[in-house]
Structure formats: C-alpha cells, structure tokens
C-alpha cells in the first residue's frame, strides 16, 4: 500500500489566472513561463498522465534532469517542496501545491518504438507521447532550438510508478482523481513541454485518456 502522500492545496483563484486552456488527450502544449509565474495542471477527470519536460528557455540545451532532481531530495517521488533541477544543477521550477500527493519521474514517456517492445509489434502505429513532443517542437516557433536528443526522461504528473524495496518497477492505477492538480512555480525563464498521454495499453490513465487543464498566474 502506498504511503507518504503529501497533499497541499493552493489559494490561487481560477478567475485571477492570466492563461487558461484545456489540452485534450493525445495533444501537446509548449509554453515559456516567465520567472515567478505559476502553472497549474489539473487532472480534469482523474487518472490521466501529463508527461512534462522543462528546459532553461534561455539555454535550451539544459534540460530537466530526473536523476539530479531525485538525488537532491534523496527521494524518487515528486510533490510539494520538490525542486525541479536541470542537468547543469540550475533550478527550473518548484512544486508549490499538489492535491494528488505523489508524481513519477522515472517512468519516462511512451513512444511508438517502446510500445513495440512493451506490448506487441502491432502496437507501433498507436499514438504516443514522444510523437506528441516532436510534433510540438515542429510547430512551436522556438521548437527548432530543441531536438530528439533533448527529450530526456520527463515528469509524469498524476502517474504512479512505484519502485519496490526489491528493485521492481510496477505500474499502478492512478493515485489522482477528478480535479486533482499540481502547481509549478518557475524559477527562471522555463520552457514547459507537455504531452497529454494517449497510452491505451496500461493503467497510467485508466485505459481512458482524458483532458487536462492548464492555468497560469503571474505569481
């Protein structure tokens, strides 16, 4: 049974947000946060996985580092108080509220190629997060500054991938629910890249990918 869930609510009001958009399942979102801005990602229907990468927008070669982030807190899960670090050690953002209580950063994103391995060769045609990431890079005016090599292991908000004391890796049903949210406050000019996961082969989004809602406040 999962322990140590850490739930912290936010006082920010949706009507005060300066940006408000829904990302349907299977679609992406790429947006540069100004220093100090707060991004809330809401799991509208519950059990969704929001695959998220961050970069130093002023130096796109410096990507989010799952390993530096978990090492700095000696814990593999992310929640309120977690500081999201880049490969250089630069602070990109911190989690300032979280009503889910635990998020994964070891499971990475799905891809057509990994689907062929994990499920069946016939699953290669199915929509996947790494295609969404690359399509966002293709569409975004700043996307040319990034490439496949910059798609480092990401954060999976609302996803539950426990590591067992015996060194196993398990996929569990979500620990999120309808309306659960997480808030990131940017520590710099941070580029955020989201793929709202379309995976239909495992319980990361309850076999039913659903939309997420993004809101931004200036502080």
């Amino acid at each position, binding site marked *: 049974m999962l322990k140590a869930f850490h739930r912290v609510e936010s006082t920010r009001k949706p009507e005060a947000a300066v940006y408000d958009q829904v990302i349907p399942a299977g679609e992406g979102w790429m947006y540069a946060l100004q220093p100090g801005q707060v991004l809330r990602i809401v799991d509208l229907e519950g059990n969704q996985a929001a695959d998220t990468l961050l970069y130093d927008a002023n130096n796109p070669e410096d990507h989010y580092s799952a390993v530096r982030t978990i090492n700095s807190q000696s814990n593999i899960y992310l929640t309120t108080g977690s500081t999201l670090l880049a490969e250089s050690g630069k602070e990109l953002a911190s989690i300032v509220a979280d009503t889910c209580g635990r998020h994964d950063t070891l499971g990475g994103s799905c891809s057509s190629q990994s689907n062929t391995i994990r499920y069946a060769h016939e699953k290669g045609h199915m929509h996947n997060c790494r295609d969404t990431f690359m399509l966002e890079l293709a569409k975004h005016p700043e996307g040319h500054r990034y490439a496949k090599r910059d798609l480092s292991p990401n954060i999976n908000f609302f996803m539950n991938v426990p590591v067992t004391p015996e*060194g196993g890796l398990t996929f569990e049903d979500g620990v999120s629910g309808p309306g659960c949210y997480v808030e990131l406050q940017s520590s710099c000019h941070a580029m955020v890249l989201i793929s709202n996961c379309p995976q239909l082969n495992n319980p990361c989004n309850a076999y039913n990918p659903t939309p997420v809602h993004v809101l931004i406040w200036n502080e």
Partner: protein
Amino acid sequence: MNAIWSETMHPGGKWSGIVGRGKLIRLTALEAGANVSMLMYHARDLSERYNMPDTLKAQHTAHLTRGNVLMSDNGRALASILHDDLGWHDPLGGYTTRAGTDSKYGVSCYQESRNGWLRSGQENLAVELVRNGLGERDISPVVNWFSKVVCDEEGNMRFADNHCAAGTTVTLRLEMDVLLIFSNTPHPLDPQGDYPSVPVKIEVLPAVQVDAGDYCVNFRPENRRAFDNTWTYYALQN
C-alpha cells in the same frame, strides 16, 4: 577467452570508444567498492542512445542484472548483460557533479594535487561526450555498474554499503555497434567520506554468436521484441 584489448581505469579515470556488435565488454572491480558510470550511444547514429525509462519499464525492474537488456530510445537492444557476479547494478542514481564532489570530499584541483585531484562524473562524461561530437546536452541517466540503491515504500533512496567485493565482474554483449563512455567516479549517493579509489579493468573480448536459446533474448517477451527490432535494423542494412 583472451581479451582483444584491455585497460585499467584508474580511480577518477574515464574511457570512451566504439565497440562492435557481438563483442563482449567485461568490467572487473579490482578492489571492493567500485562504481563505474556508463553512457551508451548507437555508434552510427548518435541521436539513438540508452534510455533508462524504456529499459526499466520494458523489464519491470528498477535494477539491472544478468538477462537484462539495455534498450535504446528507438526501441532496440543495444547491449545485454551476459554475466553478473553481483545481482544488482544501479540505473537510478546518476553521476557525481563538481559541486557535489567538492562539498563531500573537499575542494581539490590539479594545481595542488596534480593527478591525485578528485575527478567528477559530470566533467569526465562531458569531456568524452565532446570528444565524440556530443555535449552535456546529451547526458541522461547513467548505469552505475557495481552499485546498489534501494528505495523504500516512501520513495527514500538508500545506497547499499559493502555491495561490491574485490574481483566482481560484469559482462555485456553488444547487440549493436555502440559508443561507450565510462567514468570511474564514485556513486553520488555513496555516503563514505573518503573518495572511493578503486581501479577497474575494462576488457574487450571477441564476438560471440547469439543463438535462439540465448538467455538474454528469452529473459522476457519484451527482450525478444527488442532483439527483433535490432535484427530488423541490421537486416535492412546488410
């Protein structure tokens, strides 16, 4: 089997090189308490590389041992673990940084300590990445050979002491032509206050055949499919 080539990586040392498909790489901890951080890239397309999440998810594991396959972000088997004395190598803990090395072991520099200065994984990997046309941009989670990190139910990470004895070996078989980058630097979560100084031998051994009954191919259905993808890739080339 005699090695084609071998070299001892001194404590703080590093090595990079391209090694061909089918050949074996054997690492030997010449003393207790070794740690070698490794990155791996497809030699002919450096944008394809070892992917930690894809490797762990496919094999439902958070540690690496005999039978496990190191998978690329393009869905192929890059290398497999053919032999392992230890039962657990760490894919989660990452590499040491300059700041972390200075704060844990004391500031050191070449000017004062000459070649006894304390190298960091970050700088070693950066040098070998740049040497091979890559850069710090290309750093991702490493495999830490000879180290064990366990996570409790709350997610807290703990480095296992006294895990690696002197003489421990691990042997990889390369399933593709790969660029290997090694850094013989401490594990970042190793709590001991003295910089671990363990020489590690690297040997390259002649190619071996992969047959239908191969342990790594058959270790899990997922591994078989990763091998299928690799074999298809080479079938299209040859």
